[in-house]
């Protein structure tokens, strides 16, 4: 019984450890502090997106729009920074992300539009807004503080990695320690039963999309500060990387089962794999292949582990 409960996460952890062992055997440079910090920095953006995606998938939903929302927030940060200053730019960009999430949430929870369709629409819509806002050309960001946020260190750790870890801790707290978080699992496990138990299902379903949109905008902060540019194509396809991290991390696409810790492990697995392929000079095209295979194998392995 105990095995059953922990199988998903434990399986992911074991896979991660195995991967790390293999990676350190293949390259001397892998198990060095600078490289590991580099991995953390590289996974930060997708990791933050995947945290938001975990909330949504736990309710048996899906959010395909987060890559586009990231893109929208990125051009807003870049465009507003010059004339309005950093705090206002960040605030407005974050509000736009959360607002797009709110529209998703209302569409899914109140209008009853399937999440796949609603967020697919938002994927196109938010990306369109980003293009219209910029006229298609990237906006350079010339703010020293902002640039340092994306590329600097605090206590020797890259700041984006710290943002990811803070997101993880807050998300874990919300999911594990609040009535809202508990209800998110309940909704995903059996929405009708949750409703009958007095859970405000529609409100909470809306909130998970707001969280997802807001975190996409937060990932946008990391993205634009790392690159120093606001490009309307930012984050294209990232939603799929986030979904991959969530499912590799053992969260069920059917809802009600999984955790942000699992998602963190899933993000690490994908990040370490990419890193080790890079260190060993594997052709980027081949990397795509390996990543695709890994996702399928990992999820297959976990579903097997869950069955026995």
């Amino acid at each position, binding site marked *: 019984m105990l*095995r059953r*409960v922990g199988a998903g996460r434990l399986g992911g952890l074991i896979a991660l450890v195995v991967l790390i062992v293999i990676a350190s055997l293949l390259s001397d440079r892998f198990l060095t502090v600078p490289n590991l910090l580099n991995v953390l920095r590289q996974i930060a953006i997708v990791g933050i997106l995947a945290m938001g995606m975990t909330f949504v998938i736990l309710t048996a939903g899906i959010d395909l729009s987060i890559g586009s929302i990231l893109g929208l927030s990125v051009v807003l940060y870049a465009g507003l920074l010059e004339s309005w200053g950093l705090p206002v730019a960040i605030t407005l960009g974050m509000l736009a992300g959360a607002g797009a999430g709110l529209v998703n949430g209302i569409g899914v929870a109140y209008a009853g539009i399937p999440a796949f369709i609603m967020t697919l629409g938002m994927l196109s819509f938010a990306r369109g807004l980003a293009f219209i806002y910029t006229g298609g050309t990237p906006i350079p960001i010339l703010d020293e503080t902002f640039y340092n946020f994306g590329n600097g260190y605090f206590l020797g750790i890259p700041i984006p990695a710290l943002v990811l870890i803070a997101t993880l801790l807050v998300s874990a707290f919300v999911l594990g320690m609040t*009535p809202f978080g508990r209800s998110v699992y*309940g909704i995903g496990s059996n929405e009708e039963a949750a409703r009958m138990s*007095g859970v*405000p299902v529609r409100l909470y379903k809306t909130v998970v999309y707001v969280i997802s949109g807001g975190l996409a905008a937060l990932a946008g902060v990391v993205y634009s500060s790392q690159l120093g540019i606001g490009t309307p194509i930012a984050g294209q396809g990232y939603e799929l990387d986030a979904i991959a991290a969530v499912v590799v991390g053992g969260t069920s696409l059917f809802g*009600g089962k999984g955790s942000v810790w699992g998602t963190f492990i899933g993000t690490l697995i994908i990040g370490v794999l990419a890193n080790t392929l890079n260190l060993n000079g594997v052709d980027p095209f081949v990397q795509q292949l390996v990543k695709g295979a890994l996702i399928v194998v990992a999820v297959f392995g976990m579903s097997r582990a869950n069955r026995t």
Partner: protein
Amino acid sequence: MTPLLAVRGLGKSFSGNTVLSDLDFAVHAGEVQALVGENGAGKSTLIKVLGGVYQPDRGELLIDGEPARLRSPRDALARGIVVIQQELSLAPHLSAEENIFLGHFPTTRFGTVDHGEMRRRAKELLESLSIEIDPSVPVGRLSIAQQQMVEIAKAISLQAKVLVLDEPTAVLDEKRVATLFALVARLKAQGLGIVFISHHLEEVFRICDRVTVLRDGRKTGEAPIGEIDQEWLVARMIGRDFPAHARQARRSGKPALELRGLSRRGEFEDVSFAVHEGEIVGLAGLVGAGRTEVARAIVGLARPSAGTIRLHGQDVRIDDPGTAARLGISYLTEDRKAQGLLPNRPVRENATISSLGRFTRLGVLNLVRERTYVRDMIGKLDVRSAGMGTEIRYLSGGNQQKVLIGRALAVEPKVLIVDEPTRGVDIGAKQEIYALIEQLVARGVAIVLISSEMEEVLRLSDRIVVLRRGRVATTLSREEASEETIMRSAALAA
């Protein structure tokens, strides 16, 4: 006579839990062997061993007296052992004849399906079994009873020697049960060995020749049917006696819940009754009379189109189950699977999902208090599971129901509506649930009991409101109420 199929000293465990131990069981040709026991007694596991789904851990399986190994259901099928599950496994879009011959279609010289031959053989087969079904109709359009017949015909076409019927009557009405039993009798006469599983003990006496009783994975009794009676069976199934239940109506307190002219278009009309503190009001009626619909309107799952709901003398407006819970009204659903369980969440979370507020301070759950509360609740309700961390889908129906009762009680309701509280639970758990309801009412909770089981309504209720076609047909006192008076009000047109 050598049994067709037997197990000797069978033992089976799952991750340390012994489910079957030292079990002997045999099926003889031309005999209907009943298998009875509470949910969780090990019947399903035994069937799965017989059907090749599980391998025995200990002991042996014998076919025609020879030790045999069944590695898969396919293996079992090849040896003539067919298990017919409660959930039928037919392809709904294929015709009856196609379903019967699926996997062994008669073919023409060119390797295509020989439809003429298939039709001829299907007709012959159905006729020999006196099954009146058009073999060309897609089975999805047949009734459940007819689908069952098709499945049995399929088994016969596979040269079945042993037929295991897992609760075949659970989904049938009385007339269809008679048709099924006639078929079983014919199969028996043809020399098949039949294992028959049912919760309805009177059926066991109707068609079985021998009965084997299981409890907690052991055989607690085996006898030819002529030598025993129902009490003998029940005693071996639950290992304890029923309490007698003749009693006076309870003395009740102030009105807790009052409905006045409550209506919802197309569902029920002008429904008025009151439930007092410390009283159980039974809501009786045929299926479709509007009982569940009334309950759903009370807890805010559907909006009434007219009428008022009063709670402790005050009019209230209830828009959703959350509001109902805050007002002290709790509802135990009739559809545990669709509307009650959070299947892949632990027992603990299932128990507290409706009452998280009581464990929350400043927006944060106190997990220690929650745990203590659930542990206490599990003890009081006697929920048997590996622990409060076990996903609830792994519990038996009775234990799941107890957890859901715990969930309803966690909001400390003043009014509790229980809808078919013992549906799909075994006899032992049923008695425990009755005892629980009686404890609650003794503490002053007002209870509305909806049940299709006459015996249950009569036993528990102080008054009985009978609904007929969405209207209150009559209200019967405990003294007036009997199976006959209820049925007369429920079923006869005014």
